[in-house]
């Protein structure tokens, strides 16, 4: 199928289902999930814990297969029950608990991708990594190891490591989980700045509704397991945003709408948990 957009990074998820261990314990993680993410769009996925959000991310990234349906990237099939394109630099993932290589310095981590892909020489990759660090005011951190950095800086470095490869899609799995509220606001502005500058499609999983509304072009609310799309809420707030927007009337309306849908699903998840324990 030919690409319908000039900008890269459009994702189409069509009737995707995933059952873990169908012959054994049979855990249905996703059922008939369908939605689109336009190229250059920031799509935020929210839903109860364990509902299958990460399963969907793994399917798009090529880490895991699907049981039914199809996933397209720029019109090209990347996953179906019989076909799967392996993970590659088109779809970059920033992991929940961080996956910077602890044995590589900051600059080695960022320069790693272009070097192993053979796109840049070691020196050129390091130069580009240094440029990116300067751009986000992290110069001076080049020779530090990840564990010498704060969690916030680690996340920023990991996002740079993804972006240096010019991916079509960046997928972030609760990247700011565990950060304190103050660091989070800084990280949101950092991501907003990166996004405005690079304009990559982002698939962003979170539990934090403020984060979802502040960052997203649209919020996709998933049901409790098996994950289905419960509601898609377009975020019609001006872009780019500043934190004071969180006090605006429209913001609070959107938050109320999303909260209601999420709460309903959270209650279902809670009751399901009670039933499982009973």
């Amino acid at each position, binding site marked *: 199928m030919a690409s319908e957009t000039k900008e890269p990074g459009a994702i189409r998820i069509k009737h995707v289902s995933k059952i873990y261990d169908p012959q054994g314990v049979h855990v249905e993680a996703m059922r008939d999930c369908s939605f689109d993410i336009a190229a250059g769009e920031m799509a935020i996925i929210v839903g109860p814990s364990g509902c299958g959000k990460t399963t969907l991310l793994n399917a798009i990234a090529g*880490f895991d297969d699907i049981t039914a349906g199809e996933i397209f990237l720029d019109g090209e099939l990347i996953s179906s029950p019989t076909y799967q394109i392996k993970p590659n630099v088109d779809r970059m993932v920033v992991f929940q608990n961080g*996956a910077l290589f602890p*044995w590589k310095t900051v600059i080695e981590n960022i320069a790693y991708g272009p070097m192993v892909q053979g796109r840049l020489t070691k020196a050129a990759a390091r130069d580009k990594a240094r440029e990116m660090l300067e751009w986000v005011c992290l110069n001076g951190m080049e020779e530090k190891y990840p564990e010498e950095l704060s969690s916030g800086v680690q996340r920023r470095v990991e996002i740079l490591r993804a972006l240096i490869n010019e991916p079509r899609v960046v997928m972030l799995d609760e990247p700011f989980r565990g950060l304190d509220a103050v660091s989070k606001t800084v990280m949101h502005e950092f991501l907003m700045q990166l996004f405005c500058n690079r304009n990559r499609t982002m698939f962003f999983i979170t539990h934090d509704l403020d984060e979802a509304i502040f960052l997203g072009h649209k919020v996709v609310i998933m049901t409790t397991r098996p994950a289905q799309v419960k509601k898609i809420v377009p975020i019609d707030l001006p872009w780019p945003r500043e934190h004071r927007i969180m006090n605006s009337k429209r913001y609070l309306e959107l938050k109320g709408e999303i909260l209601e849908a999420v709460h309903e699903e959270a209650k279902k998840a809670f009751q399901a948990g009670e039933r499982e324990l009973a």
Partner: protein
Amino acid sequence: MSTSRKTGLLNPQIMRALIGIGVFLALWYLLTAVLQLPRFKLLPNPLSVIAEWISFEPVSGRSIFTKAFYLDMGFSIARTLIAFSLATFLGVLLGLIMGWNRIFYDFSFPIVEILRPMPPLSWIPLAVLILPGVELAVVYVTFIAAFFATVLNTLLGVFSIDKNYFLAASCLGSKPKHIFINIVVPGALPFIFTGLQIAMGVSWMSLVAGEIISGQQGLGYAIYEGYSLFQFDQVVCYMFTLGILGYISSAGIRALGRRLMAWESRRRGA
């Protein structure tokens, strides 16, 4: 780092170590020379051991001023180094491949697990049978204990690597050779170095046992000779020589580990 940190003998860590050694020697002297408790009075006391060790004319013919002492030490060090180097190379290689390749692991793990618990000394008859000369048999026995300790720790090292590092590496466009070099090897290094320290310890233990049984020279052989000739001062001298060599070799491995794993040292220092 604090600039007022004390160095040399004033360093509290060194002071405590010296006090520990002093208390040990004092207790040993008390039990064997002063109180002369039953059974203990048969043991040589530390003063007679030190006197024999630094004697120009030792009763046993072996002290730090004799060529025989250095020959024994040289033989033992050479055997251990050869066996340990071979065990490190082959053990790390096998452990990495087993951890890296699931099919190879399925084939090889049961065999490794059956061979691993066999005491090194039980290999001696077969080693003597298949290897030319006694020398290689001693090296083989020393090798075999170190080898399995290295294989197992390397394997555990690969298994300990966070799965997300492999996923991240695949997203970043790594080919299998990049993942092996950039993820598997460095990710397993902390466990490998723990394994090498254990391997070095068991190398010395197996070496002495091998030398006692089938050696013709070396520290283990000399200990057995001292036992046969009732020269217990020499036995204890050589036991301590082995202890010091073991300590130095383990410290060497730790120092190499710190150099190769700068990220670990910095994390501990951070």
